[in-house]
């Protein structure tokens, strides 16, 4: 399946895009997806350990299941609020 991952802030800067396209076996987990992200876009490897992943607008863990319909995003450390 093809997954689309929204990027923000420094992740956009590193990857040069706001939407990462990743090919994955279906279904997969967030843990596996992280590896696929780094493989597809090595520029993100230096920040992914500091980032959280979001699935369907919620923070996800490595075991969260990802399907073709999941809304996906990489969430760098946030800095809103002041």
């Amino acid at each position, binding site marked *: 399946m093809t997954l689309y991952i929204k990027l923000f*802030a420094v992740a956009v*800067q590193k990857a040069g895009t706001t939407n990462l396209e990743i090919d994955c076996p279906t279904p997969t987990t967030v843990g596996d997806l992280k590896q696929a992200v780094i493989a597809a876009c090595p520029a993100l490897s230096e920040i992914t350990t500091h980032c959280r992943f979001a699935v369907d607008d919620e923070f996800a863990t490595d075991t969260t299941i990802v399907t073709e319909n999941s809304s996906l995003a990489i969430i760098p450390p946030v*800095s809103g609020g002041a």
Partner: protein
Amino acid sequence: MIRITNDPIDNNAVLESVQNNRAGAVVLFLGTTRNVTGTRETDSLDYECFESMAIKQLEALEATARQRWDIIEITIVHRLGHLLPGEASVAIAVSSPHRVTAFECGQWLIDTLKQEVPIWKKENWSDGTQQWVHPGMED
């Protein structure tokens, strides 16, 4: 009231939205743009947001706060886009029968927003460089 907006924050509208005859206390927090961080000078800031998730997280903050404290109304407004020093990026208002509750809840809301809500700011330094702010992440 939860709102993400590109417009300047209307403080009076925020205060009115939490007004209630049962309230003995209103606490309003404004997060404003400093022109100096350490020794560096800020020309302006740009805020961006993962909006659908940010709204969901803010609603979750409100729900958790209402479980923890005796709150009447909560309003959280976050502004996006280009901000100058002195302008407010966030307004949090809480009304409660008692002041201790309003202070505690307001402080918890801003502390938790700063950790859990997907909004990011970019510093536009006075030397012409720009930098996304990601606490805990080295450049």
